[in-house]
């Protein structure tokens, strides 16, 4: 099998915070996260809002805040992605597509920002091509971020990735609050990037939308990946592996819109063992121990009873 472009193994990210007074506490926001993306493939990390998914992106890009620490292993094209290496690669081979316009400098014109200030003929030509492909008028280059419309800003943000020669694209929540048409169009652009040979990792809360475009899904729950499955596995409940993924499946409108009670446990009172235990119907005493991440039917799952 080919070497994955990005392979994240046992990623841990925790924050040091001051609790009452001067007592420091460690908040393990991401624990034992595993995911891999291959060339030409789109993988979506799906999880509910506010569960720390964006940290995954920041961790890979090497821009975690100073009070965060990261453990585990990130391998990029067969070699470990060290701090030095990501500092060299980010912005050209490895790019991030941010979630909103607030990630653009409000004081600079859009074209200038996409080009990162480069003025050579080649970059200009590239920008022209991207604008044509994305159906953006030439004048948009001279607009400031606040002058862009909702549909335009998606394409402008993706253009910041397209202008480079990315081998790995990480998109952080690329379709927040967009109407379905615009959101689908944005997802199509990621497909194009993958078809050009890039590996694409999309971090999103929108399972339905992801299922339409991506190749594989990694389900993110309480700071960890509990299942990795091909998109095909989501056609029937039976082909899914983890009880939470099955619950997600049942919660989709076309599958009955059923929801399960409870919510994800907060980092500070995370149960030992399986994080889904309090909401799971199948759990037993054994679920309180270590849960291995095992391979089943071409996917991976973190559940003792998955078949």
């Amino acid at each position, binding site marked *: 099998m080919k070497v994955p472009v990005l392979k994240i193994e046992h990623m841990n990210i925790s924050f040091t915070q001051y609790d009452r007074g001067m007592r420091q506490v460690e908040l393990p926001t991401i624990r034992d996260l595993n995911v891999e993306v291959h060339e030409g493939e789109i993988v979506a990390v799906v999880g509910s809002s506010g569960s720390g998914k964006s940290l995954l992106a920041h961790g890979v890009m090497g821009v975690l805040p100073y009070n965060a620490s990261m453990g585990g292993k990130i391998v990029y094209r067969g070699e470990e992605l060290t701090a030095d290496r990501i500092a060299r690669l980010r912005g050209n081979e490895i790019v991030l597509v941010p979630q909103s316009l*607030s990630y653009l400098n409000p004081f*600079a014109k859009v074209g200038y920002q996409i080009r990162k200030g480069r003025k050579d003929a080649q970059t200009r030509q590239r920008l022209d091509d991207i604008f044509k492909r994305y159906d953006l008028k030439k004048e948009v280059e001279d607009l400031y971020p606040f002058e862009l419309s909702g549909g335009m800003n998606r394409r402008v943000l993706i253009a910041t990735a397209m202008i480079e020669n990315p081998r790995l694209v990480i998109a952080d929540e690329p379709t927040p609050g967009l109407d379905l048409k615009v959101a689908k169009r944005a997802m199509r652009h990621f497909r194009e990037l993958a078809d050009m040979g890039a590996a694409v990792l999309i971090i999103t809360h929108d399972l339905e939308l992801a299922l339409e475009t991506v190749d594989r899904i990694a389900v993110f729950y309480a700071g960890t990946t509990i299942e990795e499955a091909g998109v095909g596995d989501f056609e029937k409940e039976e082909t899914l592996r983890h009880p939470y993924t099955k619950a997600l499946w049942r919660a989709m409108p076309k599958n009955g819109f059923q929801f399960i009670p409870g919510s994800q446990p907060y980092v500070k009172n995370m149960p030992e063992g399986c994080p889904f235990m309090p909401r799971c119907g199948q759990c037993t005493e054994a679920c309180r121990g270590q849960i291995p991440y095992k391979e089943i039917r071409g996917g991976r799952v973190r559940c003792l009873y998955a078949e």
Partner: protein
Amino acid sequence: MNRRWPVFLLKNLVRMTLLVICISIVTFGLMKASPVDPLQANVGQAALGSMSQEQREKLEEYWGVNTSPVEQYLSWAGDFIRGDMGTSLLYRQPVTRVIAVKLSNSLFLMVMAWILSGILGFALGALAGMNQGRLVDKCIKGYCLVISSTPAFWLALLLLMVFAVWLGWFPIGLSVPIGVEASGVTLADRIYHAVLPALTLSITGISNIALHTREKMIEVMGSDYILFARMRGEKGLRLLRRYALRGVLLPAVTLHFASISEIFGGSVLVEQVFSYPGLGQAAVAAGLGSDMPLLMAITIVSALFVFGGNLAANILYGVIDPRIRRGGTAE
């Protein structure tokens, strides 16, 4: 923008006129309410006692003691509108000429202080903001807090003691050397005499702008767009120049133009300490000596400067921030 210029100018002209009217009335009122008796203050109790009734009446007429305030104000205002600011009672010269001389002295001082404090304040603030929590930041912040709670005149006295009295590096006061004809005074002499007062003014001016710049720098460096720029491989000076600078410069520029008023206010005290014959000192003399025409004129000139500073800040805001420049025309 072009379409809006006349409206903008007209609006500000009206504002400025209203400001001048209000300020002149308030100044006049305060002067009238002040307990300073012009005769006693300028002629002296002893001299006054030895004068004949006739002489006293003449003096009272000169200082306008018996004219009704409203009449006095209206006659002053009438002349002012015609461009005649009157004659200074103390200097016995046209007010315009007194102000021209004093202002050129003060402007020299204030411009020096303003530029110095702006550049230094911004640089220190930016440096502190980029190194938040480190030693540099703590030192700069500590310095700013100490300075901003130090009165300007006290600092002036301190500098005077250290650099003029003990070390003897700079003159003790005045704006030109003593005993030299006006034609013999060189620019170097003027700068030499202005250094200490200008330094005092800029030292106090620095802390304000540095603290604000620091705060803004921290905010900008923690913003999403700086994070994204870093994720796109930008770093170091390039990141600072291309991405952070505008966001930080904006409040600094506005603040600095608005701080013209503070430099004006500070100069009154500092000029007094250094016996520097500038506008501030003239204002004090005019106030204590009941020199109504001069004080009114100085107040109005100062108000116009402060107004101009704020106006410049407003205009520059538009130049620097595209959201204001373009947002305004897009309506």
